[in-house]
């Protein structure tokens, strides 16, 4: 099978869907003439023209809301945030408009749109460019939140997100755009709301999503050398969450470690821990552990970045503690 970059997978997903449906457009900062701040939309202006690939001024609140208004009136916008850190100035339109419109109108105005862009840290970018708001958006009824971890998932999930009739928050990573992975030539879609068992195992379930899946996978490789068999689950979607797959896994492994790039308080891992203890209490042989970022803003220096982020060593320690090794 051919191998393509994460950014190419996203571009293919958007381009294929735009060829199918003339009412889809892409709007955001630098998406057109600059070919995308991270080259996700490279070449799309040439193919689809300025009517459908639209550069905006630096006005996230304004163009976020223009997207919601367009979605109310028959279009299917893809709104790109250069990073979700910048979505904070548009969050009123995401939470108060996009997520509420269908409900407030008693089912008259659904919002078929995608807000997409990179999330979380990407090196030494300092505190304001390094935040993960997956749990913020996942907290809000009316939204769906998708966080792919590889090119294959990115393409299949983005196509589904674009076809979805509800607003979808689609969160990528600057550090994944260059990642290569196998993506078939033929069309496929992946269901939103279904987790993916990346690797079967018997001793512990490791749950993660997005870029930080790499940390989980690296830890599992090391642990295998010690004879610890890890079942690895990629959530793919953090709203809704596929609890059933997690519970089935815990029934088999009796142990769970969650790895997440987010601050610990009220994170996705907090929610998973609650649900798994509630639905899988009798199957657990050890407390659930989680690895999150540190409970601080990210600092610039390399030592501070390293201390802040989850890493394989911390995951290995957690797995060993729940397997009593």
């Amino acid at each position, binding site marked *: 099978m051919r191998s393509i970059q994460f950014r190419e997978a996203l571009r293919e997903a958007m381009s294929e869907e735009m060829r199918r449906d003339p009412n889809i457009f892409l709007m955001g900062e630098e998406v057109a003439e600059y070919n995308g701040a991270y080259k996700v939309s490279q070449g799309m202006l040439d193919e689809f023209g300025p009517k459908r690939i639209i550069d905006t*001024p630096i006005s996230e609140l304004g163009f976020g809301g223009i997207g919601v208004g367009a979605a109310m009136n028959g279009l299917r916008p893809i709104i790109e945030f250069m990073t979700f850190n910048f979505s904070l100035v548009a969050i009123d339109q995401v939470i108060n408009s996009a997520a509420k419109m269908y409900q407030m109108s008693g089912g008259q105005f*659904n919002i078929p749109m995608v807000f997409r862009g990179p999330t979380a840290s990407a090196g030494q970018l300092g505190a304001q460019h390094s935040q993960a708001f997956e749990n913020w958006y996942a907290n809000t009824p009316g939204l769906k939140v998708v966080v792919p971890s590889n090119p294959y998932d990115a393409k299949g999930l983005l196509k589904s997100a674009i076809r979805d009739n509800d607003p979808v928050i689609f969160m990528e990573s600057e550090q994944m755009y260059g990642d290569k992975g196998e993506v078939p030539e033929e069309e496929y879609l992946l269901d939103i709301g279904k987790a993916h068992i990346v690797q079967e195992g018997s001793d512990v379930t490791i749950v993660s999503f997005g870029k930080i899946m790499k940390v989980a996978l690296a830890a599992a490789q090391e642990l295998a050398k010690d004879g610890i068999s890890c079942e690895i689950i990629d959530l793919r979607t953090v709203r809704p969450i596929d609890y059933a797959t997690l519970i089935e896994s815990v029934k088999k492994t009796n142990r769970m470690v969650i790895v997440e790039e987010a601050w610990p308080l009220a994170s996705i891992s907090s929610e998973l821990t609650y649900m798994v203890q509630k639905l899988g209490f009798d199957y657990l042989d050890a407390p659930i552990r989680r690895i999150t970022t540190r409970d601080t803003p990210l600092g610039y220096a390399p030592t501070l970045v390293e201390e802040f982020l989850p890493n394989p060593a911390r995951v290995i320690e957690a797995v060993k503690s729940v397997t009593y090794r």
Partner: protein
Amino acid sequence: MAKQKFNKETYLRWFEQMMLMRRFEEKCAQLYGQQKIKGFCHLYIGQEAVVAGMMSAITPDDKVITAYRDHGHALGCGISTNEIMAELFGKVTGCSKGNGGSMHLFSKEHNFYGGHGIVGGQIPLGAGIAFAEQYLGTKNISVCFMGDGAVRQGSLNETFNMAMLWKLPVVFIVENNGYAMGTSVQRTTNLQDLYKLGLAYDMPSAQVNGMSCEAVHEAIESAADRARKGEGPTFLEIRTYRYRGHSMSDPAKYRSKEEVEEYKHKDPIEQVRKEILSKKWATEKDLDAIEDEIMNRVNESVEFSENSPYPAAQDLYAHVYHQEDYPFIIE
């Protein structure tokens, strides 16, 4: 003002529409006192000429969006008194099926894109609605209302910039009633002629007498015409006045009785009534009959609402997602 431009039918329609808004809102005030209507409730009394003048100037395919003082706009767009009143009662027969209440009236059928609750939040939405019309190649426009408080939001400035850049077919209207809740325009800005905000973006902008249906109609008609021709947005500052407080819980102690009385002398319904009578387009008796018919409709809407059921408890989940089998978390 060229009053001869408007014929008998237009004046009678204005009279009927404004009287409907006035009597409907008076009934709402009464029902709010009786706790039949709950939540926040912002009345439109005094501002009726703005919606009446707008409705005669646009087409039924044009889209209308506003903030939370939305009963007048919903009535103007043609949503039935039954559906609006039932919504205020929180009944399932309401125009938003009991999900919205006073601040969130909606009707796709009547091209009313809602009542929105965050000050200024509807401004980019109104531009987005216009964006879709332009994208789809229609000749329809979007009319986006806001209050004088909303012009202080960043959303206005971001939206004005893009609406002008892309020549979106939208008419932005600030209904300047002088007060953002309890704070007068004078106390929030150095620039008290609000229409001048549009000039910063080279947007055609004007001040309009909001107590005159004729003036409102003419301003919106020419703005709509420009929008339909692809010439882009217009910003109209329509100077109006609300006779009541900001919401039902506001006794409006921040302004004088004299000020309120001064505006009541310019009451738009009285002006239209005088014009109709002086032109002998109708007699006092004819107008009284219209008023009686309106009171009947309003009273019927109360009865309809009283007799309608509330949504079932399970309906809480009915319209959160378009997806029918969304797996909600149940504790």
